[in-house]
């Protein structure tokens, strides 16, 4: 039997346990997006009365945001953890063992995907408890979990790439506002066709985060919207592939230097 699955499993377990043992890392990605969603839903409830708003429940509209916001948090956590491994010398020590670079990256990503899916389950449960009806039904919820896994691979690989590139947890944290720019200048709070400021509508339309959010939103409030699903899954898959490739290359370079 190949050693690769064993190595990936051990490193994934380490990645999950490390997050689970640090409440400061594990709890904010779960609670903060839900808290922000509830506050926004209370504050922006009136905007459901705008002509053309796709639902009469702002909570249903906003439930898509925690999925992507949680993924952004995971990016930062994943990057910070890997950067800490580099800074503390763990990475250098493990590079002296037979563990392969692919196993290091895959283990890290497997841990992030597991946490990403658990986050998605938590957000779905919160939505159901708060009375949100998923228009796409149980199959839609299952698809949402697959989507969450793909998004987690993409964002997790970006976090890993940043960590391998900079080798500094502080640098990763410093990039946090930049990632939030993408989230805020998107259709997170208003459907793109209802954004009245031209330049903002343009930026939201060229921002891939808008389509990642709209894919989730379509399963919650529309049902099966082929265009939204194709755009969301397409962007998530391309992002995941590109991010994994660049992270793998950076892993190779980092291992050569170690």
């Amino acid at each position, binding site marked *: 039997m190949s050693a690769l699955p064993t190595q990936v499993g051990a490193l994934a377990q380490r990645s999950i346990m490390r997050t689970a043992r640090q409440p400061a890392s594990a709890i904010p990605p779960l609670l903060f997006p839900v808290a922000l969603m509830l*506050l926004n839903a209370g504050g*922006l409830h*009136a905007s459901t009365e705008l002509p053309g708003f796709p639902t009469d429940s702002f909570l249903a509209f906003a439930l898509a945001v925690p999925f992507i916001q949680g993924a952004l948090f995971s990016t930062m956590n994943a990057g910070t953890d890997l950067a800490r491994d580099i800074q503390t010398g763990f990475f250098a020590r493990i590079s002296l063992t037979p563990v392969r670079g692919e196993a290091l990256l895959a283990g890290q990503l497997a841990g992030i995907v597991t946490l990403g899916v658990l986050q998605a389950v938590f957000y779905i449960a919160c939505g159901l408890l708060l009375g949100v009806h998923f228009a796409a039904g149980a199959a839609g919820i299952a698809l949402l979990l697959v989507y969450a896994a793909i998004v987690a691979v993409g964002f997790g690989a970006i976090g890993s790439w940043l960590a391998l590139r900079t080798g500094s947890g502080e640098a990763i944290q410093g990039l946090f506002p930049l990632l939030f720019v993408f989230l805020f200048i998107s259709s997170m709070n208003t459907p793109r066709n209802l954004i009245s400021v031209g330049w903002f509508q343009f930026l939201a339309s060229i921002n891939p985060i808008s389509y990642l959010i709209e894919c989730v939103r379509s399963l919650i409030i529309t049902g099966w919207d082929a265009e939204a699903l194709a755009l969301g899954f397409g962007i998530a898959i391309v992002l995941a592939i590109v991010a994994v490739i660049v992270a793998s290359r950076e892993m190779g370079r980092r291992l050569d230097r170690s």
Partner: protein
Amino acid sequence: MNLWPVASGVAWRTLKNVLTTPSLVLPSLLFPLLFFIAFAGGLAQVQNTPGFDYPNGYTAFQFVFVLLQSAAFGGVLTGFGVARDFEGGFARRLLLAAPHRGGIVVGYAAAALLRWTITATLLTIIALIAGMQVGGGPVDIVGMYTLAAIMNICGFLWAAGVAMRLRTVQAGPLMQMPVFLLLFIAPVYVPLALLGTTLHAFARFNPVTYALESGRGFLAGEPVHAALGFGLLLGAAIVFSLWAFRGLRSAEAAG
């Protein structure tokens, strides 16, 4: 004993540290601008909801919130610096050297205020470029910025009290989260009357609501709840002063 030498020294050092470290200065400048762009740009259509009656448009409506938010977080971020100084050992040396320890808190507070002044200036310039309508006269505008300045001091004193009791940067979420929640349990996106039922129930008892409505009234030139807004913030500043100075005693006792 004169506390000015200690206060000015601490303020100067804190400001110099912040302004020469990009990872410290950029978030406090960029986050308010980001919020302003996202809220004023992305949510402008909200002003067309039935019952939205703010006369100066959505950009002005959001500007006041972001101004108060930047003020509060400018104070909290300076509180992070206090925690960092304790963690690194600098604050303990400062406690030993300062002839008037109250000057330490005053110095950090002055730095928080000056630091926020830079953010507020930048935010105001961006808002005016974005076409913000100003209805209030000079006295109203001074009133609005004074409210925000008191909010800045409140944010700092709260965070400093936490920082001096726990003396670690890991206390950051404890400094930040209550302020964040108080700010968002207020009429952030729409006037109080248009909030959802649950949020409305909480917002009515939130002092930030009245500070926010006062600020928006000043900017529109139609002051509302001005005495209540100032009164609540000044009351909070007094309570948080006690909190911060007792925190200083706690730090002194811990050595």
